[in-house]
């Protein structure tokens, strides 16, 4: 069975086509990297795959369930680490974990043990009772990753999970995710701008640009196709040198306004 299957998926915002008729398949237990320049349509695709944004057209199946017709069943099957912050800053680290555990039906008797284990893993256990608003960006990121792993999802989506983390933490977190992939067969679908990271962990890579998938295959295949020495060179070969502009979503604009007011 396939973990994820997208067929002719498109998303338009007014005149702008963010995702343009893409199709791809992700095997069970695979580690799938979804790469692309800023504004290429990565996050929009992840939002559609995870039921929070309705596609303009196309079909998505996740673990055999139709994402559009059966969103509740689909939500039981995946976990997600969002690109933007998604913690409640006015609650403690432990409380954020606990709410997640309850929402994802982690059994009550297992919950404290798992929360301790995961907060320990991202080295936040001694800060468990501190409000999240006192955390640095990196700490928040670690907490979000720990939270995404709490319920042992069958498919784990991660949108630029390691952004803002130092190499030590990145390695540490990837080794845990790879172990989960190996032990539990968790399918991993992630985006990143670190090409070395994708090169190292991904079993399959899709490169998206201007809403279209421009290449797909293993890292070796992509390098071979573009006659490049590294994945980064292959990526630039496929997507060009031009620097991209990304429109801020309304909520991001607001975040900036609020920052200015402070």
């Amino acid at each position, binding site marked *: 069975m396939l973990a994820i299957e997208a067929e002719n998926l498109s998303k338009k915002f007014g005149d702008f086509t963010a995702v343009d008729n893409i199709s791809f398949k992700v095997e069970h237990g695979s580690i799938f990297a979804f790469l692309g320049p800023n504004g290429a349509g990565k996050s929009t695709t992840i*939002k559609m795959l*995870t*039921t*929070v*944004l*309705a596609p303009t057209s196309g079909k998505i199946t996740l673990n055999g369930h139709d994402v559009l017709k059966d969103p*509740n069943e689909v*939500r*039981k099957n*995946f976990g*997600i680490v*969002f690109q*933007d*912050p*998604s*913690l*409640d*800053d*006015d*609650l403690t680290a432990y*409380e954020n974990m*606990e*709410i*997640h555990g*309850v*929402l*994802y*039906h982690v059994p*009550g008797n297992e919950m404290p043990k798992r929360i301790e284990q995961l907060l320990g893993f991202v080295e936040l256990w001694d800060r468990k009772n501190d*409000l999240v608003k006192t955390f640095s960006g990196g700490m928040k990121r670690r907490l979000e990753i720990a939270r995404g792993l709490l319920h042992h999802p069958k498919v784990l989506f991660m949108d630029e999970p390691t952004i803002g983390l130092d190499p030590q933490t990145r390695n540490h977190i990837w080794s845990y995710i790879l172990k989960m992939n190996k032990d539990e067969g968790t399918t991993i679908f992630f985006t990143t701008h670190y090409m070395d990271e994708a090169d190292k962990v991904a079993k399959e890579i899709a490169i998206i640009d201007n809403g279209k998938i421009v290449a797909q295959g293993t890292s070796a295949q992509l390098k071979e196709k573009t006659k490049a020495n590294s994945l980064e060179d292959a990526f630039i070969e496929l997507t060009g040198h031009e620097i991209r502009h990304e429109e801020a979503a*309304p*909520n991001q*604009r*607001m*975040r900036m306004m*609020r920052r200015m007011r402070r």
Partner: protein
Amino acid sequence: MNTLTVLWLRQLKKYFRSKARIIGSIGQPLLFLVALGFGFGPIFSKAGGGNYLDFLVPGIVAMTILFTAIFSGIEIIWDRQFGFLKETLVAPVSRYEIMVGRTLGGATIAVLQGALVFVISLFLGFTPNLMMLPLAIVFAGLIALFFTALGTAIASLLDDMQGFQLIMNFLVMPTFFLSGALFPLTGLPSFISVIAQINPLSYGVDGLRGTLANATQFGLPMDFAVLGILTVVVMGIGGYLFSKIQV
């Protein structure tokens, strides 16, 4: 713990942790009680209306609940902005359940805030009918639920805080001022009277006044029926709109 409890508890924890918010939201009702209660008191009794403070307090308690409840509902916009909303929207629980949990949390806070103003009013000289207090709490709860759900419904349609001033000036303030919170609904020009009668808060104010101050316009059964039905309806609409949110 289940979804409802954990989301309800979240609202309460956040409320009790922001002392500034608790104290800040007492300021306005207190000002209304003192300025209007003592300012208009003499004229009101001279006109044969009786004790104005006894008349006013249920109105101001209702106002406090209205404001707190609407804000709690609209908090969804902040959750959207800070991203926490996404976390709940991708969870494998029904969005109606999420909406109801949040609404119960917001409504509880609104009732607590109303109770705080009620207690303060006792020190200002309000003499309520304490026998009817349990029934008054039921009305307070209905007002709170209705307006939290209304706030949720509105916030589900908004992307950011741009429309907030619009809601304040064209919905919340008129709802308060034209509800009979400040003046009796008898002998009014007919257009104001009509507005007051289609204003849900009028029935909430009347219910509180009927229980706490033994004075009702529509009768308590009517107040209860109107508010109860409207609350169920707006919970349904709010839940539906919330379930359609995209981020």
